[in-house]
């Protein structure tokens, strides 16, 4: 177990290193952020001065080396545009994104598994067919369109919910969270639903397929033969068995939710990390881009590790580390 975790850590470090190198070179190849940031009246001398101030006049390898040395000490550089440490900017925005992604995941799981289960148990009923139609829509509709439609209907036409932004926050252990205030929840509902839709569709399909498969298994037949009620069969035999693939996928998808949140955050002006990334890419704010991607990779690695551990809990036959 320990050697497994250590091996994973070594791989992760290598991934982080390669990632930072690629992003660094990529942003460098696009252009000079000073051209984008500087005031147009600036002359050549002023552009050169600003470029030198940000260290962008040095050769690429030297810039990377300076970044690397700083990164070892936990310093990922200072944002060109905001003059604030990049990591501060990201940590400042992280609660908003995590809150949004986790709420979306929660919506997807609490709706997706029961709906999928229902659809799997009676695949030919009209209910099952409507659920599957819903799931098809969830796959087919682009996120930004769904977001805008929800805004038009629930905010502009009906006036029930706010269009954009994050609501009032309360500090929980020093972290500002909006899920614990009524205003915060009102603001969270539309973006979280938008973000959840795709994952909801996916979980419905997974749960349905799993259920249909499980219903044909011998253990279900035996359970029925034992005289268990249909409800008990589903609760204690079907559900636990379909959960394993769902946990794996849900875990992986949580990572992609955090990354996919970019579109939703832009549409709903949600002040999260995704919006920060877009803004930073627009002005080639390299320290923030690199720090964001490193933070995201770390998050992915962490989630994958947790999923593996959870997997072992759910299925006693699996031991974390048995990957070969």
């Amino acid at each position, binding site marked *: 177990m320990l050697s497994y975790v250590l091996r994973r850590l070594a791989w992760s470090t290598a991934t982080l290193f390669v990632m930072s190198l690629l992003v660094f070179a990529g942003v460098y*190849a696009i252009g000079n952020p000073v051209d984008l940031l500087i*005031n147009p*009246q600036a002359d050549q001398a002023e552009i050169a001065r*600003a470029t030198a101030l*940000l260290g962008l006049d040095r050769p690429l390898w030297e810039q990377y080396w300076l970044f690397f040395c700083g990164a070892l000490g936990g310093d990922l550089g200072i944002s060109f545009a905001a*003059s*604030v440490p990049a990591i501060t900017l990201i940590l400042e925005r992280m609660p908003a994104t995590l809150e949004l992604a986790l709420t979306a995941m929660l919506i997807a799981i609490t709706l997706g598994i029961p709906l999928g289960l229902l659809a799997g148990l009676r695949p030919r009923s009209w209910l099952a067919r409507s659920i599957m139609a819903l799931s098809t829509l969830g796959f087919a509709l682009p996120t930004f369109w769904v977001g805008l439609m929800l805004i038009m209907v629930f*905010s502009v036409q009906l006036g029930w919910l706010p*269009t954009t932004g994050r609501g009032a926050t309360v500090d929980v252990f020093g972290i500002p969270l909006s899920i614990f205030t009524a205003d915060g929840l009102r603001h969270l509902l539309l973006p979280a639903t938008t973000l959840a839709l795709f994952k909801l569709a996916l979980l419905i399909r997974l749960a349905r397929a799993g259920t249909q498969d499980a219903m044909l298994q011998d253990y279900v037949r035996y359970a029925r033969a034992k005289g268990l009620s249909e409800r008990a069969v589903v609760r204690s035999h079907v559900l636990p068995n379909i959960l394993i693939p769902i946990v794996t996928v849900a875990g992986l998808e949580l990572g992609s939710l955090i990354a996919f949140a970019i579109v939703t955050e832009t549409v709903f*002006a949600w002040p999260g990390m995704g919006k920060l990334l877009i803004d930073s890419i627009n002005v080639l704010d390299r320290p923030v881009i690199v720090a964001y991607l490193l933070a995201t990779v770390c998050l992915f690695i962490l989630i994958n590790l947790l999923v593996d551990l959870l997997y072992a809990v759910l299925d006693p036959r699996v031991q974390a580390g048995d990957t070969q």
Partner: protein
Amino acid sequence: MRYPCTMKHRPLTKHLRLLCAALVLLAAGAGAAELRIGLSGEVTSLDPQYLAAQPNLTVARHVFESLTDVDTQTRLIPGLAERWRAIDANTWEFNLRRGVKFHDGSPFTADDVAFSLVRPLSIKGSPGGFAAFVRAVASTTVVDAHTLRVKTKYPYGALPEDLNSILIVSKKHAQNAGPEDFDSGRALVGTGPYKYLRYQRGDRLELTRNEHWWGKTPAWDKVTLRILPADPSRTAALLSGELDVIEHVPSADIKNINKNNKLHVTQTTSWRTILLHLDQYRTQPPGVSDLSGKPLSANPFMDLRVRRAISKAINRSAIAERVMEGLAVPAANIVSPGVFGYNSALKAEPYDPDGAKRLLSEAGYPNGFRVTLAGPNNRYINDEQVLQTVAQLLTRVGIQTRVEAAPMSAFLGRVRKEETSFALLGWGSFAADLSLRSLVAAPNTEKGYGAWNWGRYANPKVESLMEQALGSVDRNKREALAREAGTLAMQDLAFIPLHHQVVSWAMRADLAYVPRTDEFTFAHHFTPR
């Protein structure tokens, strides 16, 4: 006003107290005038001297002021300086407004101004570009608390314009302040109409009225500036009533907003001129070839007849009406109508495809040639559609044009690597001579000329007139010279002017705003009507 719970003689239960508190809040909400504005640009820092970008300055100008101000038409008016005059060719004297106080109550003096003029150069890691506005300054002398003399390195008439961009900070608060001190409001102490209340980066800035401001008291005692760069979201927030005003109304939404009787749109010609730079220095510019793809023997853009053919081939009124959906005015000038140095005698080139073909034949390209037109796709109003339309119009007269549109970051990177030879740029300025210095004067690092003259157009006559204009401290003389220089550059088609953008605001029907040529959105200029 009196509220029931201020009567202390009667003991109240906890619940009643809460109820009262809620009532007070409601009453305060109803009586207080708040204005909620949706801004379109990302604000990166609240330090007014960190980055000279319009979104940052929009926010900063609510809290801070500059010596010289500009009116809605970009003409100079007094700001923190009541008057200014040139004592001699190299010295300007500014007489500061008396009785002005910073938000903390400390008096505003010439020391603060002298400090604010040197501070931009000393900010660590700032890509700001504010140094460009004080590059002509040799030294400043504080004559007394309300008089400041600025010596320039050379005779310089545009100093009052340049100093409009330098916001005056309080020396006491800004001296040792870092960016975090501005974002937290500690150092955000100015003389302006609004004071810092709360800031959430990337989301909103809340401000309260400065009751001691020297100017006309603004109608709103609280202002919330929301940052909403996504166009549809900004419109939606206005439609739902969450915002009272939005700036930069998406062109597609203007018609619908005008139909809505609870809202209205106000607009004016902006100072931003959209133009096409042409390579005029390489014999074989990249992307230019004959119709079979082989290089041409000479650079066609160097021939005035070809430049005129391109100008005639472009249907500016069709672009303005259809592609820009009315958000453009065909251009013939280097600056927008009303801006210092504008020449109303210049008329936009009429659409004349036959004339264009004739000129091309005369220049030796009867069958045309091939070019690549580059430009941004996320910077100006409908920029990519404008590029596509221009390309189609040019192709129609024989200049086969391919479009290469990219995000501003990638596009500028290519321009700086000199990989483009025909490219679109937007430019806004207070004065024609300032525009000429950046866009038309031959690139010269020492003098700071032509930093944005991508085509390296060079014309000694234009340049000498421009230098005389910039060096003239007599405004009338300067404007005449600037107008002459700009006219000459346009007759020679230093670049192809396309259009001046129109800038628009949408707001509640009971609000009024005088639209500003410089595109700024100021809460204190909105009035109930």
